[in-house]
């Protein structure tokens, strides 16, 4: 078991290296630092010296992989790849184009992101699973059929609609909550983004959980449980839900670490100063240093999610725990 986990953690290294190489290739080889400088300097006719000045100011004036001018270890170490890419492994994200320290920025923006993402995740999960169980309990009836139609309709609506409709109705028309903004500790600002986030995934998620439950309900041990004379509710909660926990965990645990990154759309629409809006601003400003850092951080958190998933299996599935 422990061995298994250690192996999974070790497996993370080549994956992160792969992510690094990929982003490095995208940002430094396809797109040379010269291109970058030209975009940031803006003007049509930039001089070569202006480009060189911008590059050296932002630390882009080194060779990609091998520095012929440097001596000894410096040949490999004093390069863009080490400087911009490998340093990420030490969580050294460097500075954004506006000169601000990215790591510090990330640290201060995690809080607001989590304040939205965590309740959205928890409330959503609880709601979707309960709703799906309700539909399964009433399977074969009009309630279930209507629920499924509702889910398909809800998942056919653009996510942007939920945001815009929510802001318009709850904010502008009914004045329930502020339309956007954020203050630490002020719950009024959180309700609407959370609500919109939860409602936005009702269709997809409920359908998914419902089909998981249906898969379990067709299994032989459920028939055995019924043959024992257990009530339908007990069959559903103890047997169906108990076994469906395993696939549910696969889908759910892996995203938990990613909650730190927040949601791009929600944060940007509701003006939450979290990592999601940070990323979106970086994309729109074409600040590649930030984008690269977020890609690395995202991968890191994803892999943490994978390891957590393995751990959670050992809790939910005795076959894994005891083997």
């Amino acid at each position, binding site marked *: 078991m422990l*061995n298994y986990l*250690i*192996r999974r953690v070790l497996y993370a290294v080549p994956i992160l290296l792969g992510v690094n190489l990929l982003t490095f290739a995208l940002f430094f080889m396809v797109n040379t630092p010269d291109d970058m400088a030209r975009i940031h300097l803006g003007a049509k006719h930039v001089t070569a010296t202006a480009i060189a000045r911008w590059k050296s100011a932002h630390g882009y004036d080194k060779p990609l992989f091998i520095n012929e001018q440097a001596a000894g270890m410096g040949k490999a170490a004093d390069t863009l790849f080490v400087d911009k890419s490998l340093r990420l492994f030490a969580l050294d994200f460097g500075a954004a184009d506006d000169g601000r320290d990215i790591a510090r920025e990330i640290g201060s923006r995690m809080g607001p992101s989590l304040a939205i993402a965590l309740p959205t995740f928890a409330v959503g999960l609880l709601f979707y699973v309960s709703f799906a169980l309700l539909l399964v309990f009433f*399977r*074969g009836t009009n309630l279930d059929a209507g629920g499924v139609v509702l889910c398909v309709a809800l998942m056919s609506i653009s996510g942007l609609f939920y945001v815009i409709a929510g802001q318009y109705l709850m904010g502008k028309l009914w004045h329930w909550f502020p339309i956007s903004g954020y203050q630490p500790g002020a719950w009024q600002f959180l309700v609407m983004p959370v609500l919109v986030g939860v409602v936005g995934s009702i269709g997809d998620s409920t359908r998914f959980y419902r089909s998981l439950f249906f898969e379990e309900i067709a*299994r*032989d*041990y459920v*028939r*055995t*449980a*019924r*043959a*024992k*004379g*257990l*009530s339908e509710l*007990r069959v559903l909660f*103890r*047997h169906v839900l*108990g*076994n469906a*926990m*395993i696939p549910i965990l696969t889908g759910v645990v892996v995203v938990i670490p990613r909650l730190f990154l927040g949601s791009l759309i929600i944060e940007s629409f509701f003006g939450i100063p979290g990592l999601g809006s940070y990323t979106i601003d970086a994309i729109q400003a074409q600040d590649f240093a930030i984008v690269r850092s977020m890609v690395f951080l995202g991968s890191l958190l994803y892999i943490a999610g994978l390891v957590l998933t393995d751990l959670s299996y050992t809790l*939910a*599935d*005795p*076959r894994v725990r*005891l083997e």
Partner: protein
Amino acid sequence: MSVSHGRPKEREHPLGGTARSAKGALMGGLVVENLRIEIPVAGRTLVPVDGVSFRVETNECVALLGESGCGKSMTALALMRLLPEGARIAKGSVKLGTPAEELFTLPEAAMGKVRGGRLAMIFQEPQTSLNPVMTVAGQIAEALAAHLGLRGAAAQAEAVRLLEAVGLTRGHLTAYPFQLSGGQRQRALIAMMLAGEPEVLIADEPTTALDVTVQAQILELLRGLQRQRGMGLLLITHDLDVASDMADRVAVMYAGQIVEWASRDQIYTTPRHPYTQRLFAVLPRLERRGQRLDSLPGRVPPPDSVFTGCRFAPRCAAAFSRCHEEIPAFHEAAPGHFARCHLAASPAWQAASPDSQVANPIFTSRGSPLAARATILEVRNLAVHFPIRRGLFRRAVGSFKAVDGVSLSLHAGETLALVGESGCGKSTLARAILRLIEPTGGSVAVAGEALAGLSGEALRRKRAEMQIVFQDPYASLNPRMRIGDILEEGMAALLPLAAAPRRARVKALLDQVGLPLDAASRYPHEFSGGQRQRVAIARALAVRPKLLILDEPTSALDVSVQAQILDLLAELQVAHGLAYLFITHNLPVVGYLAQRVAVMRAGRIVEEGPVEQILTAPRHEYTRLLLDSAPGGGITARHKRCM
């Protein structure tokens, strides 16, 4: 309706009035009357069960016997009111206990009390019938809480008592199902179902998925519990031998109806329905060696057929005009012996039955003595070891010896049966011989040429000499290919034939295995299991092999279809001088078909010899255990040896 009931008063019930339990007492038990199940599908109505009536008294075992699709499992599920979604009980009544309580009209909550309480059921698949994430104790405790209201220490004590009653121990309480063997799981399931102290226990093919030695133990346990607790046991089975070992009374089902119903002795000595007679006639046995097995032509009518006469008439050798025009009544042909056949009571049925196998052609032309013929397969010390990897870096710390030094030889025209239980390595051996798995040691020579050194083109050419037929008729044909393309695949790969002669050969092959010529342009799903197995045999024959490995080719088939396939195999062997390596767990089939037998256990051959010697005077202890465990010999006879 064709069911001829007496007046509804219980004493005069045709099923209960005369056929009494062993002790003669007429007790409550389970009375099923006129059960009809319907499945509406896209405008049509399937009727898998139509007018079924029988009774199971407490303190007796009733076997509901029938081939796949006859409706026996549907019937069992209907009694529990656990029919799969889509199927519904259209008509009928089920009464349980004294005073009789009608189950079909009970509200669901009250039915929950009956289910697993007074009426319990165990299922076929021990692998999947237990909840994988709950301990045995947890799953028993649920039943105890539901029916006896027991909790905590009292439940614990009762659970231990139940486990001990089914031959498990206190130590199994904390076990999860994956930590138990198949037999232990089935025992745990039985313990769960005994928790409510049922009056009647339904066992739906409880041992079909188990090895023969485990089957014997479970059957014995069930019979013992039934006697000891004085409960009724309704055993659903397809196996005539199992029914004969277990049942006091037998109901034979065909196409959704019970066609014969009598005491076990009556059924097994004087079967009165032609279908039952045929079932006995198709059984392979040692004493039928060299004889052609009787066959049952045609197929079971589909469950949406409309019947104007007897359901069995189209396949019945004794059928006459009345059989096609008038639905036969289910009547008492002899005291306590009911049958659904116009001829059941009259002596005419005996004349019509092809009772004497002497009339059947016998395969005697086996040619020159075996020793004089060419050796087709020579296996020496063959080994297949799989590494067991452990630890941080998945280093091989040992190996699992699936096949561990097996030697065999096989002559042209000879059949060698390889007998063993699941996991003994027999299928791995087959794949290793064909080099579908690379052996880790030893040598295989086919027709005098060693396979080990061959590779590429040479190995490919060699493959034409050795072919294989698999167990599962559904998985062995690609559902997206036409039969013709399936048969041509091997020829295209291995024979130097142009397209036109290939197609001609497809026709010849279809003819040889008894399939219609238009089969070539059809897809596998249009064929029955037996027909698919014929296709699989034709596919293997297409490249003109010398050696045919038959990996349980009939174990997924009904006995009547099995007989057809065995006949076909015998014919083909004579016609082509094929050498068969016949892998099976079924000893009667071995006795019928093979000249020599090798018994395999844990990767090794423990005994090998001529079939008569192995089946009648085995030397190895394990062979004796296998023989003793085979059903059909009666339970008590081998009581001591099995436990």
